[in-house]
């Protein structure tokens, strides 16, 4: 069961990574990247690394995404 959960998350991780690479819209890619980080965060937590999971959620899904969005908003006009 635990292995199956990991497998589902890893599949989702690869799918979101491919979606980021294929996204045409930059803002959409940033949001998809945030989804990638959140998936990875759940995976870390499930693998017993809560410290890394917290960092992934706060830095990967939070600050990085917001910085990407700010930069996209400032450059694409």
């Amino acid at each position: 069961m635990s292995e199956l959960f990991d497998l589902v998350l890893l599949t989702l991780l690869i799918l979101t990574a491919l979606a980021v690479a294929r996204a045409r819209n930059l803002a959409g890619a940033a949001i998809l990247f945030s989804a990638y980080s959140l998936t990875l965060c759940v995976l870390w937590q499930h693998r017993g690394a809560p410290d890394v999971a917290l960092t992934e959620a706060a830095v990967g899904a939070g600050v990085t995404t917001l910085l990407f969005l700010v930069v996209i908003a400032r450059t694409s006009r």
Partner: protein
Amino acid sequence: MSPRLAAAFVTGLALPMIAAMAALPRHGSPDQPIHTHVAREYIESGPEVGNLVTAVLLDYRGMDTFGEVVVIFAALMAVLVLGGRREPATAPDVPPSPIVAFIVRLLTPFIALFGFHVILTGHEAPGGGLQGAAVLGGLVLLNGLVFGPEHARKLLPTRLLPSLQGAGPLAFLAAGMVGGIVTGFALGYPAHLPLLHEAMVVGVEVGIGIGGALIFSRIYLALEGG
């Protein structure tokens, strides 16, 4: 580089890596060296800090963590030297959706509380200075993105901002010097003085947390022309 060449290159890199991964001991297997020697050593003779990850980060690898804190500070210096937009940005061109504005206003105090909680309990529970800093910095960025950079600036301590930005490296340096005086080793933690030990760890975490949050916010404001 042609796509076919790139694909061949990536495959050539990936195959040995996957082969090496397959040869690694199974995840969580109790007879791999990290569980028979390294982890036991840390757990048995580790310092008196509740969260072992924090103990490793601040104690065994204190110098590494100090370097990382300096790197974050250096990133801010680099952004400030390069300079942001010349004309300062004002309020967003499009007013925020009332739903988004309401949710952000509603969540701001709770996110701030969670950020401070993560910073202050980092030595006992998962979390720590950098994680809390990212939560608090993300909060400032979120407010700036929704309400405009001027609103985000109001959340920051204007007068103390320049001196507090270096709080991370300074707190680390102070703890390292106190440790040096008490134990004879720079960045050493006095195991025989639990109260001082706790104060040093919490002081470092608070320094990294507050300083890091302001660094994240300041990088954002620099991008916005502040």
